[in-house]
């Protein structure tokens, strides 16, 4: 008897969490699609409060720019660190401490990454900027990339390393010409997943990249991004702004979804050694 109750509970629980998921997806799609006007939504700037036309093309560009800045910091930093952890320092005390630290860093709330970037970039610079937003997102992305890359490198079989060493490679030659190409699909997956995560974050950008109502590409100026735009527009009491927030939400979810799919596809390109 108890058994039936418990089993039913698990069914109920499962349904219970799938329902909100579907509701969110459906609502965002329905309301978002309703408000998407090609090409205006992507090519226009937000309207003054109260008017109905306009778009958020500038925020899409802003998101791409901040992600580019964040990647240019986090990707080389993360991959090279992971190379040390997997190839040169495997099992060492340093590797243990660095991995511990990276794991703890993944749990640091996103808003604290923003606070960090605020005190390190915004305060000295005297103003908000896309660059500080990129720094905040880079702190967010770094531990994800380090972990994923290290795992990818550890998956490359040791026979490959022995073969490379046996033929007289230096460590540098072995890593660059043999190991990295073999681990590349998994590394790309990790990087793209980190990007998907960073693309959706608003908190780290609230007081770093802040916002901008105009087309902007200068990394040293504040810039609009989709997540921040959604937040700000959701609290403006005019329906037009709220409608744009829904449309932006749909575009943001689509972007995150595309990143996730690309990550999965990249992961499927297994290197030949399996």
């Amino acid at each position, binding site marked *: 008897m108890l058994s039936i109750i418990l089993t039913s509970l698990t069914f109920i629980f*499962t349904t219970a969490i*799938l329902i909100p998921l579907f509701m969110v997806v459906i609502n965002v799609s329905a309301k978002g699609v309703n408000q998407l006007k090609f090409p205006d939504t992507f090519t226009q700037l937000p309207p003054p409060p109260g008017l109905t036309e306009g778009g958020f093309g500038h925020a899409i560009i802003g998101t791409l720019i901040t992600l580019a800045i964040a990647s240019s910091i986090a990707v080389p930093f993360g991959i*090279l660190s992971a190379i040390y*952890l997997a190839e040169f320092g495997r099992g060492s005390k340093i590797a243990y401490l660095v991995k511990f630290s990276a794991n703890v860093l993944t*749990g640091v709330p996103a808003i604290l990454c923003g*606070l960090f970037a605020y005190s390190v970039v915004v305060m000295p610079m005297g103003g908000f900027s896309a660059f500080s937003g990129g720094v905040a997102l880079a702190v967010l992305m770094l531990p994800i990339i*380090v972990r994923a890359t290290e795992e990818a490198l550890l998956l490359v079989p040791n026979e490959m390393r022995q073969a490379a060493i046996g033929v007289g490679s230096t*460590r540098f030659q072995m890593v660059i010409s043999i190991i990295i190409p073999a681990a590349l699909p998994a590394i790309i997956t990790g990087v793209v997943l980190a990007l998907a995560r960073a693309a*959706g974050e608003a908190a780290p950008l609230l007081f770093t990249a802040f916002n901008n109502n105009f087309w902007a590409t200068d990394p040293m100026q504040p810039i609009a991004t989709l997540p921040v735009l959604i937040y700000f527009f959701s609290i403006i009491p005019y329906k037009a702004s709220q409608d744009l*927030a829904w449309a932006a939400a749909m575009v943001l979810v689509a972007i995150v979804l595309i990143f996730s799919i690309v990550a999965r596809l990249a992961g499927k390109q297994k290197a030949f050694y399996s």
Partner: protein
Amino acid sequence: MTTFDDIQDKVPAPSLEKKISSDRVLDVGFWGLTLLLAISAGAVLIWVILQTANSSLPAIQQFGLGFLTTMTWNPVTNIYGVLPQIYGTLVTSFIALLIAIPVGVGVAVFLTEDFVPRYITTPIAFAIELIVAIPSVVLGLWGIFVLIPFLRPFFQFLNNTFGWIPIFGGGAPRGNNLLVVGLVLSLMIVPLIISITRSTFEVLPPSLRAGSLALGATRWETILKVLIPAGLSGIISSVMLALGRAMGETMVAAMMVGNANRIDISILQPGATITGLIASQFGEAGRLQVSALMYAGLVLMVLSLIVNILAELIIRRFQNIE
């Protein structure tokens, strides 16, 4: 054109000595670069902590530990305290865990047992992973315009009928409250508990289950008395990680908690969280206010570090034992 034979004859006993060649320089340089960057990557955490602490100094000096027990947040008189926010953060996280732990473990059991065939559990597991991908600001948007209006009648019902119970008390609920934030947070953290619990179950040796069933235990007795205790370390660490995530979540809290600077025992009333405070205040903050916000961030950092380090230690300790 050199061929093999030419070279074989010419090279008698070439020197094996270390030379300064471009190959060696590149090799040693590369090793040094990766070492430097790895150490730096580990140091980022420390830098983040120190930087936040440093920026909080003016506020720490001004308010000391009283910051944690003061209820005022007044930019005009420059008096700051975060007791309501700490309360709100803890209560919303607690509500989230209260829901997410049983649901998470239950769904993990559902996905690992064979109540339904694989071709049903696989897409479900995939869908659950999708929840994680939804940006929290989108969840906040949905929360404001869909969930809160939907739940408002329910909250009012609770308030009318059960208002004599303190946690359902207070004035007529308008929807922005600790409960609804706790609900959405539970949705956000439950996939984490599910996926870690599932992995924990999957690495349990099959002999454990087989042994229990062979003794005559039923499926559920096995699950409750053998499998869950055996996987307890994994479950606990997933709960700690989930707690950390719940405490640190910003957008959902900022958009739905009401940002009311008060402590109310009723979860149907608006409240405040540390993250919501920081998010909503930073825009036009003056110097001391910024420092106070940094101090609030430091408090959050300490809470989240404790939880995350504990989780990491539990994971590592039990990985070594198994």
